[in-house]
């Protein structure tokens, strides 16, 4: 049997049901792996070893009695440290929040608790889910398990790293301009940003509330579907639609974005497009507005909303922020009401344009990152790649989007693709992603950690 540390949440639930594995044994195996690799990966802000084992023991009793709380009862997971868990610190990876203790669970944490999932700890982020990767914070930045000198993506960095490194089967992250899909792509796992507000945000520290989303980072599309069923505010059977195949799905390839990709990323995307076509999907080319324009509109809204949250601290204790966070938040102080209104008007126009595209296609296919992953200390390359990504447009519009791995670059680092779907049509989105996952060569490579 596969080492349990590499099993998906779906597989772990199945193994518990069959009695092939126990929540305690799996939790202990993961804790041992975390103990071994955490010093070189920095995925965790805080580990909850004692309570995790206690929760796992209770879950084991429920499985033995044939009364599990859900299909993921006893499955370990982690929370990006902007998401509250009652009684634990929510630091947002910031000096400004070192002493904050959450009084209540975030809504999503409560949902996971009700499902019996085992919370293993709080995970590294970029400060306040922005900035980063930063070396001037109380906690070090997470490292990419495929190559520790390279960026793991952000801002849900610890979530991406922990899942990719076999420390956790899944984690919950947040995404305001791509922060679930970026680390999912850089770490070679699946990351889902659902439709805006489909997953509740209360108890999650905001970055820019009209752009913020909560979602899972996990090992497979099936896990993303299963977890969304537990997290969504509208009940739906996403897993039931996964195996319907690709035939008949109309997929629009956003050609003007593919044209921006580095050659090996573009080549991997083209292979995936051929695989989709061969499997029966109806492929056509479409265009989205100029990427720079979309990024600007997203950034103005993010900065204005972010400034409104952090203004007092930026006025009184600016030196307590990381340099990169401060640089990204300060422009919000100099935006006028007219600027925000202008951005919202343009946002509305972008939404209308994307809605019109979805009249002709079911799914949009977009690169995740245009470039292969850069070194974590290469500030110029980081700036370049952050300005060139196709994730933020779907924060602007609120459409659901999923990132999934499609191969590796010449440096052995993951390459990822992004699919976007209609509002609240996660069923079709997950079906397309699942179909693609099935037709691509099976991924067996593991990060070179052991």
């Amino acid at each position, binding site marked *: 049997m596969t080492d349990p540390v590499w099993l998906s949440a779906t597989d772990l639930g199945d193994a518990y049901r069959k009695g092939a594995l126990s929540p305690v044994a799996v939790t202990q195996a993961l804790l041992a792996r975390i103990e071994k690799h955490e010093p070189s990966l920095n995925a965790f802000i805080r580990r909850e070893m004692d309570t995790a084992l206690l929760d796992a023991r209770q879950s084991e009793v429920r499985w033995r009695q044939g009364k599990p709380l859900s299909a993921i009862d006893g499955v370990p997971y982690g929370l990006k440290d902007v998401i509250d868990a009652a009684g634990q610190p929510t630091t947002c990876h910031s000096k400004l929040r070192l002493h904050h203790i959450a009084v209540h669970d975030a809504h999503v944490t409560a949902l996971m608790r009700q499902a019996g999932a085992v919370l293993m700890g709080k995970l590294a982020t970029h400060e306040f889910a922005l900035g980063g990767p930063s070396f001037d914070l109380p906690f070090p930045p997470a490292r990419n398990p495929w190559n520790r000198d390279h960026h793991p993506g952000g801002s849900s960095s610890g979530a991406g790293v922990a899942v990719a490194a076999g420390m956790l089967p899944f984690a919950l992250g947040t995404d305001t301009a791509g922060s679930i899909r970026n680390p999912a792509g850089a770490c070679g796992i699946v990351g889902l940003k659902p439709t*805006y507000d489909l997953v509740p945000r209360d108890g999650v520290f905001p970055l820019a509330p009209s752009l913020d989303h909560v979602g899972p980072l996990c090992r497979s599309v099936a896990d993303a579907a299963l977890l969304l069923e537990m997290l969504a505010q509208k009940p739906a059977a996403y897993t039931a639609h996964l195996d319907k195949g690709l035939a008949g799905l109309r997929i629009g390839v956003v050609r003007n974005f593919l044209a921006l990709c580095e050659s090996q990323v573009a080549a991997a995307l083209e292979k995936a497009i051929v695989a989709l076509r061969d499997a029966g999907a109806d492929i056509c080319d479409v265009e989205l507005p100029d990427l720079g324009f979309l990024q600007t509109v997203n950034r103005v809204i993010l900065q204005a909303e972010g400034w409104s949250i952090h203004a007092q601290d930026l006025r009184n204790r600016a030196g307590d922020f990381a*340099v990169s966070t*401060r640089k990204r938040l300060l422009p919000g*102080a100099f935006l006028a009401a007219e600027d925000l*209104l202008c951005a919202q008007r343009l946002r509305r126009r972008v939404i209308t344009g994307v809605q019109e595209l979805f009249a002709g296609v079911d799914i949009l296919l977009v690169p995740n990152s245009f470039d292969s992953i850069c070194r974590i200390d290469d500030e110029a390359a980081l700036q370049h790649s952050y300005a060139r990504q196709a994730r933020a447009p779907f924060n602007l519009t609120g459409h659901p989007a999923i990132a999934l791995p499609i191969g590796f670059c010449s440096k052995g680092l993951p390459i990822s693709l992004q699919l976007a779907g209609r509002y609240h049509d996660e069923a079709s989105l997950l079906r397309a992603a699942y179909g693609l996952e099935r037709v691509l060569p099976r991924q067996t490579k593991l990060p070179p950690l052991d």
Partner: protein
Amino acid sequence: MSPVAPLAEAAGLAKTLAEFPDEVEAAIKLAAQQRAAMAKARILTPEEEAWPPMQVLHD
């Protein structure tokens, strides 16, 4: 006189300006660049689009 100080003071950032003058100046420039970039898109008149457009609907 540079417009940086009055703008920073108006935003309540006098202390921050004293500590991080380059960053505050860069923030003012970036905000202006973004304003200029958005101005390149043709802004519709109230007759051409529903008003107010602030509400962003996702379904």
